[in-house]
């Protein structure tokens, strides 16, 4: 007897590859999804009686394709004029099973499926829901809950995104190496967006927090298909390492806990190990990329048993690399935090002063600047920065976060004065 839980997990795991392969046959997202749904229904009946197939994904593709074909045949019997285009697209249906199970084909199928969801015409607010619906197979209800909108609004958003994608048309030919690597870059970005949606969720926002798990699942899927891509290893490692801290990031009252105050025993060791192993492997390629460098920074935090043991000069060097790969005032700001630990607050302040124009509307800038000024004993200027930071906070959690930071820095400086 096979457990219903096993079937459900196997269906979820098979979904991206199965839908992607069905999309290649039908060249239509809705048709591919319908065929997959039908295959799932049959799997629930069939697997319960006959036990699980050796390759659930292959089974679902085969059955989904045949079920959809039956539908077409039925319809064509009823209708006097069969849809020529549709029938000719389905010609390869009798091709033997072996062809379908080629791994490299799977790879291009899944990449195409994911790439469709991050079409440049789609804003991120549509890309992420579309990917979650199509690739991950979350229900519209689940996605709506994660984005705090009504089910109807989310349904509409996804339908609109699908229409835009259909209009744009997607190449179904096997992509060349350059195109494949471009697609991969865009898809990695989308996966990281999904992760950040989950990561930025509050402590009680479970529906949104689950998106982080989903992004990790997608990252693992990408890596299985691109096993020799150090940036894919870097992306997955980055997500695993950030996610490993999840249980320590909020206190019992739901307030954010700073990295330096987190209970490191709550960090999930298995995720850290996997992340570190992936970085170790990626480093062998001697090819740096932005995800890998960010993962390496996260790894230095993960390796430190206490905040005091953090390798700040290592982090400084990695941020310097990241500045070169992906120049951005935010990266420089982050680097300044590491510099303040190794070379002191004045060096860090000198580093960020030139950013004040570009980051004048960024709350972390004023928060960090205030902190540095306070360390230098310039309380009045520090206060000004803190006030601006508070005014720029986007959420109550951000405000509370900076507030806590400020309060402690003030307390510390007072202790220092007394000493």
């Amino acid at each position, binding site marked *: 007897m096979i457990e219903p839980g096993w079937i459900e*997990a196997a269906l979820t*795991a098979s979904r991206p590859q199965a839908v992607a392969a069905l999309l290649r046959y039908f060249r239509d997202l809705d048709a591919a999804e319908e065929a997959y749904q039908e295959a799932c229904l049959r799997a629930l009946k069939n697997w319960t009686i006959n036990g699980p197939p050796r390759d*659930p994904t292959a089974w679902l593709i085969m059955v989904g394709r045949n079920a959809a074909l039956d539908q077409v045949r039925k319809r064509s019997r009823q209708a006097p004029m069969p849809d020529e285009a549709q029938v000719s697209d389905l010609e390869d249906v009798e091709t033997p099973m072996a062809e379908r199970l080629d791994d490299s084909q799977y790879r291009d199928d899944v990449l195409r499926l994911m790439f469709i969801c991050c079409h440049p015409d789609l804003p991120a607010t549509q890309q992420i829901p579309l990917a979650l619906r199509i690739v991950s197979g979350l229900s519209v209800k689940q996605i709506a809950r994660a984005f705090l909108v009504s089910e109807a609004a989310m349904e509409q958003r996804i339908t609109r995104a699908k229409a835009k994608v259909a209009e744009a048309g997607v190449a179904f030919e096997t992509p060349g190496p350059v195109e494949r690597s471009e697609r991969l870059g865009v898809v990695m970005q989308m996966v990281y967006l999904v992760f950040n949606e989950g990561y930025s969720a509050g402590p009680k926002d479970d529906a949104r927090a689950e998106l982080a798990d989903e992004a990790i699942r997608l990252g693992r899927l990408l890596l*299985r298909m691109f096993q020799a891509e150090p940036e894919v290893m870097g992306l997955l490692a980055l997500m695993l390492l950030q996610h490993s801290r999840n249980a320590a990031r909020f206190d019992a009252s739901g307030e954010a806990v700073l990295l330096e105050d987190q209970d490191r025993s709550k960090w999930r060791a298995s995720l850290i190990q*996997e992340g570190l*192993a992936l970085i170790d*492997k990626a480093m062998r390629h001697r090819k740096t990329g932005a995800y890998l460098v960010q993962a390496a920074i996260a790894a230095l935090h993960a390796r430190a048993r206490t905040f005091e043991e953090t390798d700040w000069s290592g982090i400084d060097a990695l941020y310097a690399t990241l500045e070169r790969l992906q120049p951005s005032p935010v990266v420089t700001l982050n680097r300044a935090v590491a510099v303040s630990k190794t070379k002191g607050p004045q060096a860090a302040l000198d580093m960020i002063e030139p950013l004040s124009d570009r980051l004048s509307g960024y709350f972390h800038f004023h928060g960090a600047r205030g902190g540095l000024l306070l360390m230098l004993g310039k309380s009045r200027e520090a206060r000004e920065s803190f006030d601006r930071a508070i005014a720029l906070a986007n959420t109550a959690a951000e405000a509370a976060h900076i507030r806590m930071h400020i309060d402690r820095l003030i307390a510390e400086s007072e202790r220092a004065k007394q000493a």
Partner: protein
Amino acid sequence: MMYAVLCYNNEEMVCGWSKEQDDAVMAALSTVHDKWETAGKLKPSIRLLPTSAATTLHKQKDLVVDGPYAETKEALLGFYIIDVDNLEEGLTFARELGRANPGGAYELRPIQLYLPGSPIAGAYATDRGYAGEKAK
């Protein structure tokens, strides 16, 4: 007789488990582990990280490739547990083995969980039959 029990399952599925699902499975397994360990019959058990974390050294060509060993013509004949600083040192070990015993490949897969289990009696430490014959 000693047996190695090799665990196979759908990796995409197992990696997709939530922490709660994973914890539940581990808890269910641990009752079985406890029973056999108390009886002195369960030796070390190991949980590997996913194949995406694996690296393979093809011995003859000294070729290091990312990913698991995927050939089906060759079979798993044994394994080592090593405690090294990093993948590079692990590969050094594997290369030394490869020079001593060429042909085939070594897959280096990071270990996620290592449980030592009950101690192994001296006779089991070497091949039992061989040790027994020598003693005669």
